[in-house]
């Protein structure tokens, strides 16, 4: 099959169908509404379920119900909607249900605006809902990668019986790029017969619940979930390096759309003979601590620059990974502004020019 020019939001919808999603519950919100529009048409064509709920609260709890009934399910939303879904996210994680959430992030806080942002990084990677849980979080930077990671998200949700979130800024949702679905297939489905509520014919009843009043029972569940997150840290770390193998002087860390701008800036600096490399986390929980530290501690690297469309969120993970062993700098844009390659080139030159550390 030839490559197809698709808008990010539509590609997400098609990728979910390729991944075997059986049900999609949603509520309209800019800039991801095209996913809903696409699936309103497509889901019935493939025998799937499409429901436009009365709110994100309800849509995400429909995800709970359908996931606990054994279906492969997902939803998409954008920042304010994700806040409302955070209630269900906690319950879905607590009940160890596989489900995929996609957040096409818009600028905030509050209603904020409808332009791209990376301001939900901390919400996605450090919780969002209440209680002691984590999502596995992936951050694509192209539409093709969005397609591939959407399919992968369904596999990982099943592997861990844990919700997986894809975070893309508004550009990922709105941009059009050629995408290839060739060779992409649905990941094998988890056997849900041991716990899904499907009617108890021929077996004891199944109960899917999150209330555990005995502290020792609940602590045991907390520990089991912790073990899953530790396993994710061992097995699911994903990242990309760009021009990091020839002793760069400056390492720039960025993810998502921002990493594409950084790549352009790195190319321009390289043309001038300035040795800059890029480190791009693809999994942001688990965060690639060790690979980033290794790249940053190459003797030639004088400093690390974090670039984000926020006032500094992934910055905290980078700071933690570096353990203070390299000077750390930050460049952020907000309000829906996307950093321009020129300003990044200037910033890199400035940092290498004065050679001083600390932010």
């Amino acid at each position, binding site marked *: 099959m030839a490559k197809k020019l698709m808008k990010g939001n539509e590609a997400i919808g098609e990728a979910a169908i390729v991944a075997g999603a*059986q*049900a999609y*519950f949603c509520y309209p919100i800019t800039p991801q509404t095209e996913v809903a529009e696409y699936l309103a048409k497509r889901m019935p064509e493939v025998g799937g*379920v499409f*429901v436009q*709920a*009365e*709110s994100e*609260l*309800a*849509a995400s*709890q*429909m*995800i*709970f*119900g*359908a*996931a*606990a*009934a*054994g*279906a492969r*399910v997902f939803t998409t939303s954008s920042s304010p909607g994700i806040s409302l879904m955070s*209630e*269900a996210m906690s*319950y879905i994680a607590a009940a160890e249900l596989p489900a995929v959430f996609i957040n096409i992030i818009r600028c905030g806080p509050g209603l904020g605006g409808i332009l791209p942002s990376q301001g939900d990084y901390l919400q996605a990677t450090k919780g969002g809902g209440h209680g002691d849980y984590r999502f596995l979080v992936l951050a694509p930077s192209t539409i093709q990668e969005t397609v591939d990671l959407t399919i992968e998200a369904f596999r990982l949700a099943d592997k861990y019986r844990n919700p997986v979130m894809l975070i893309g800024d508004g550009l990922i949702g709105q941009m059009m790029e050629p995408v290839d679905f060739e060779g992409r297939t649905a990941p094998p489905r988890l056997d849900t017969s041991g716990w899904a*509520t*499907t*009617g*108890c*014919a*021929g077996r004891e*009843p*199944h*109960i*899917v*619940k*999150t*209330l555990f009043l005995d502290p020792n029972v609940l602590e045991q569940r907390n520990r089991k979930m912790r073990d899953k997150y530790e396993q994710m840290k061992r097995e699911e770390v994903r990242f990309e390096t760009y021009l990091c193998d020839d002793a760069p002087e400056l390492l720039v860390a960025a993810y998502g759309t921002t990493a594409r701008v950084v790549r352009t800036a790195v190319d321009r600096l390289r043309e001038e003979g300035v040795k800059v490399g890029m480190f791009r986390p693809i999994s942001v929980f688990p965060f690639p601590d060790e690979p980033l530290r290794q790249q940053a501690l190459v003797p030639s690297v004088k400093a690390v620059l974090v670039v984000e469309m926020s006032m500094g969120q992934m910055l905290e993970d980078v700071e933690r990974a570096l353990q203070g062993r390299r000077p750390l700098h930050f460049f952020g844009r907000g309000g829906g502004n996307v950093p321009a390659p020129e300003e990044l080139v200037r910033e890199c030159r400035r940092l290498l020019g004065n050679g001083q550390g600390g932010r």
Partner: protein
Amino acid sequence: MGEPITIFKRPASLRDAFTHYCPGCTHGVIHRLIAETLDELGLRERTIGIAPVGCSVLAYNYFYCDFQEAAHGRAPALATGIKRVLPDRIVFTYQGDGDLASIGTAEIVHAANRGEKFTTIFVNNAIYGMTGGQMAPTTMPNQVTTTCPRGRDVNLAGWPLPVADLLAQLRTPSYVERVAVHTPRHIIQAKRAIRQAFQYQAERRCYSFVEVLSTCPTNWGKTPAEACQWLDEVMVPYFKLGLKKSPDRPPVE
């Protein structure tokens, strides 16, 4: 002497368990009516119940069928999710008045309005039970609770929310009935309504909703007998019993 005949036993859809409900509480009666219905219609093995947040959160410890436990007020959303992916199963939500009539108002109205083909048993006892007797949307005028210690002031808190009557206004076909369980006669009527609700679901006819007026002697500060009398004298005149809407009756234009 013939063989002894069993004329009353625990329904197969109930577990052999002691409930945690307070003495005089009518949750047990309502559980039994649902369980009898599942038995009689042969539905237990394809039924999925949804427990709410409130006194009946542990309902899955008493019913002997598959169950999910919902976040506060969201049982109709879970039920929608289940029913849409497993349309041939029987799904019911069991919800109290804080859960359904306060925090879950949007979910219940929209599930009913979409005509989701599941059943809701709405237990209305005019108070928040599990948290210890706070004012509910269904608390009666001048009724004293811990959060309206001088009695419900309808000028500040409004009048009790008549959910069955509200849902009956929707154009989407559904079955809506309000019953009570404070006397044997009312229990028999409640059983008929609950059975009808599940029957409509089994026939994939429509959404079905039964509001059951229930007692809370503990938080009302009454004996079980006084509670039944209070339900009859105070709640029934306001929350009028009877059939509110039926799929067999065309909507009034």
